[in-house]
């Protein structure tokens, strides 16, 4: 069979499965990025806090997760998670057994905690980019707490964070390929399966590379668009 037929949508073509797997890659990355956003926001808050403990905790989080291989984090959550659950199961029921855990959620969580470390730095930088005067002005008109945060801080943090978030998103997209080690059928895993059963690894890994390129290029375009939209009210030299 020619490469064209192999990648096509015919009876023996893998096209539909590869597209499905691409959608899975996108889904798992979106979930991971969302988890990362939550962790990142909390950690950034800690790093900017007045409390010494919170600052140190935030620094430890970002240092550790940016210094340890992402693959190791995936292994830790995937195998460690089922180790924990299995021992809980033994405690509760008294029987031994192995409990597997959901590959999608674990994978998204693993990529998410790593992404959170990078997003924390992005949010922190974006927060520090807000002119102090704006916050003082908001305080002087009597805004406080939540009002100040969602009217003044949040819109500007998001605006300044867009370029950095774009980079972190690309990292997460590429890191999502590592989730294939847990058996989740995303783009790389699907190409592995297809390579195995057709013995045409070059064709399928190239196809995967092209699909990843499409994903990263569309992301670049989207983030550029978002940046210019968010910056439309800012005068620049």
């Amino acid at each position: 069979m020619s490469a064209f037929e192999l990648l096509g949508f015919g009876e023996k073509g893998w096209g539909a499965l590869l597209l499905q797997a691409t959608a899975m890659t996108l889904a798992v990355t979106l979930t991971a990025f969302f988890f990362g956003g939550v962790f990142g926001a909390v950690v950034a808050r800690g790093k900017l806090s007045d409390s010494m403990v919170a600052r140190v905790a935030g620094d430890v989080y970002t240092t550790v997760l940016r210094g340890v291989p992402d693959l190791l984090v995936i292994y830790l959550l995937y195998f460690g998670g089922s180790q924990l659950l299995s021992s809980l199961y033994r405690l509760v029921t008294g029987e031994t057994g192995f409990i597997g855990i959901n590959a999608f959620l674990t994978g998204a969580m693993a990529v998410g905690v790593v992404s959170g470390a990078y997003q924390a730095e992005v949010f922190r930088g974006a927060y520090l980019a807000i002119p102090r005067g704006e916050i003082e002005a908001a305080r002087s008109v009597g805004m406080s707490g939540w009002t100040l945060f969602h009217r003044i801080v949040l819109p500007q943090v998001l605006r300044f964070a867009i370029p950095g978030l774009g980079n972190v998103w690309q990292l997460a997209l590429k890191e999502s390929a590592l989730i294939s080690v847990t058996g989740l059928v995303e783009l790389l895993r699907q190409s592995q399966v297809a390579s195995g059963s057709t013995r045409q690894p070059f064709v399928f890994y190239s196809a995967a590379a092209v699909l990843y390129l499409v994903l990263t290029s569309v992301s670049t375009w989207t983030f550029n668009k978002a940046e210019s939209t968010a910056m439309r009210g800012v005068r620049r030299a």
Partner: protein
Amino acid sequence: MDFAFYSEVIWRLLGGLPMTLNIAFVSVAVGGLFAVGLALMQESGVAPLVWISRAYVFVFRGTPLLVQMFLIFYGLSQFPEIRASWAWTYLRQPYFCAVLALAMNTAAYTAEILRGGLQSVPFGQIEAARACGMSRVTLYRRVVLPIAVRQALPAYGTELILMVRATALASIITIMEITGIAQKINSETFRAIEVFVCAGVIYLAINFLLSRVVMALEHWLTPHLRAMPHEQLLAKVGDKL
């Protein structure tokens, strides 16, 4: 806590340290050479060279490293012509493929970092050097490269740390470096948390040392940003007062 188990795991994992360092060092060195080539191609102004270099950077930065590694290690073996050629002696070895993939990958990122560094050199400095009559080589050696390297160093430090992290992927194509050994111990003992935490500590130590080295290098290369000796002395005295 089971200290005997921890110390046994750490010792076994440290057995993979030479391989991890070896892969990281060789691929950073080879990738650095590729990167210089790529950056020079982009700066050359010759259209086909610029185009090739840009395409290379686009492809290698836009796809996951693991896909690149699989393409080299499994993908190339699809062709009987390659299996029959001299290249097969190398391309069949997981070590060679892992290093090649890592080197080609880091080359793309490093080329961009280098290009950023080269572009950060103020044009006035180059003009001034030319006005003094420096030749192209002297100009690069005395003016352009020192400024570019200094400018690129922080970003390159980050890239080095990313490379140390990326060596873990070599374990997926069967190389027994730290992560490979950790995975093996995990499958023997089913004590995933302890094993992977120990492995994480080793990587963290490597990257901590690495970041210190880069910081020291930065300090050494930026004497103009440090306080003058008498200012440092004053600062010290000031602390005591």
